[in-house]
């Protein structure tokens, strides 16, 4: 048993040694593999990040009602209207933002402060932010928004559910494309590794023949090629993870800047440890399988 493990280790190191001794073809193969893995991985990370944005927004859908009310007692009348709405079915909370508050906030966050100061009167309407029950579906919330827009007190309604829906639709399509890409990636790994394994087999066919002649079992003959395939997959995946994280680093700065403009806490997420382990494992297994099929086919003809 000890001998058996030792032999496995020897084959592993022997295979590594072979790969290092022909650095250029090895590197090329691993590079091609890593590119095949990087693309879907990168898209996956982006989808994951978008996903977190989507769920965060979907957690608190809101309808903004810009009111027609004006005059000196605008605050009271607006609040009364808010109280009335709070009694409606499906509305969990109401927040009132007075024209003065809105103006102050607007001055604070924009560069129009000095111009706004010069305006004779506050142009901003009173605003009621309606929070529907979180259990309501997008469709119901949309109906609610339409009904509220019919009220005379309401000037315009802005409801962000519509584009959230569109957004999540896009993400769904994106994810489906991703599944297809993941399958293609798996296929790509298998094809690339079986090609390089085939070349490796050809370059070692004398050895295969001799070992077969002197009584090496099929398992013994296959072993170095299985390690070869698995190692290629693993190295390809590791390089792909480096490439992916590097790409994420490159796009994270503009994306984070963009996100802060929209005041979302959207953040590019690095490929975590669990995903890293999963990708490396999957690529290793696929490499192993590819090599196994290739050497199996070759030995059948021996």
């Amino acid at each position, binding site marked *: 048993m000890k001998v*058996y493990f030792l032999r496995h280790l020897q084959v592993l190191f022997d295979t590594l040694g072979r790969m290092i001794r022909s650095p250029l073809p090895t590197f090329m193969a691993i590079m091609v593999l890593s590119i095949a893995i990087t693309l879907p991985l990168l898209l996956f990370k982006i989808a994951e990040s978008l996903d977190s944005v989507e769920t965060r927004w979907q957690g608190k859908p809101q309808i903004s009602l810009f009111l027609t009310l004006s005059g000196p007692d605008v605050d009271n009348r607006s609040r009364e209207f808010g109280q009335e709405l709070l009694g409606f079915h499906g509305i969990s909370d109401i927040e009132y933002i007075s024209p003065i508050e809105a103006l102050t906030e607007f001055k604070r966050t924009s560069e129009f402060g000095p111009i706004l100061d010069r305006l004779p009167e506050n142009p901003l309407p009173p605003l009621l932010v309606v929070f529907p029950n979180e259990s309501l579906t997008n469709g119901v919330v949309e109906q609610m928004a339409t009904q509220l827009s019919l009220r005379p007190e309401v000037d315009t309604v802005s409801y962000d559910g519509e584009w959230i829906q569109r957004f999540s639709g896009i993400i769904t399509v994106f994810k489906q494309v991703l599944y297809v890409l993941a399958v293609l990636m798996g296929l790509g790994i298998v094809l690339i590794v079986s090609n390089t394994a085939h070349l490796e087999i050809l370059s070692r066919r004398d050895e295969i023949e*001799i*070992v077969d*002649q002197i*009584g090496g079992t*099929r398992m013994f003959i296959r072993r170095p090629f299985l390690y070869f395939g698995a190692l290629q997959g693993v190295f390809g995946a590791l390089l792909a993870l480096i490439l992916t994280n590097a790409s994420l680093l490159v796009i994270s700065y503009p994306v984070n800047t963009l996100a802060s403009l929209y005041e979302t806490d959207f953040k590019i997420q690095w490929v975590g440890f669990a995903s890293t382990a999963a990708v490396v494992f999957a690529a290793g297994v696929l490499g192993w399988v590819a090599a196994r099929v290739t050497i199996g086919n070759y030995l059948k003809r021996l």
Partner: protein
Amino acid sequence: MIRFNQVYKRYPNGFDALKNISLFIPQGSITFLTGHSGAGKSTLLKLMSLSEVSTRGQVMVNDVDLAGLRGNKIAKHRRSVGCVFQDHKLLHDRTVQDNVALPLIVAGVNDRECRSRARAALDKVSLLDKANRYPVSLSSGEQQRVGIARAVVGRPKTLLADEPTGNLDPGLADEIMKLFFMFNQLDVTVLIATHDTRHLADARAGIVELSDGQIVSDQHP
């Protein structure tokens, strides 16, 4: 012990390389297999190492009927038969010692024993001083001795050699033949295919002559 019972071999192209071969070679004997080029000598040896399978008839080596062997049993059978080839079939990216140790590694023998047995086998063929060289730096005769050391390192009961002196000049060929007789002394059954008639005079050896795939004479000492 080697036994052939009405064995036929037809190659996929329809050529009958062996026709109705019946043969008995006792354990511990040494036998020359001779005949013109194309007579079927190599084919007969290949049936014994299962590089080819007979089309009809029974081949027994070391009391094992080869017809029923599959998968790992074939590998196990090959480990019990040492083979020497005309073109040596050495691995050029491994040292002489590693080449000789290969059958032991394949058999799952531990490193220390591999080393000591490979060196003992190299000592028998007088090449211990070249254990760490690579085959390319050896002469053809030396390479063939490495091949013989590799064939005997696993202590097989049967040793098969296909034209082992084919590429060697007479002096070296005699040395190689001496080695086969030496291993035969250790109760190894030796079968040597050769068309070199010089060695056939040795009184200790049996002679089986093939012609066009059939046995034309079978002499025992």
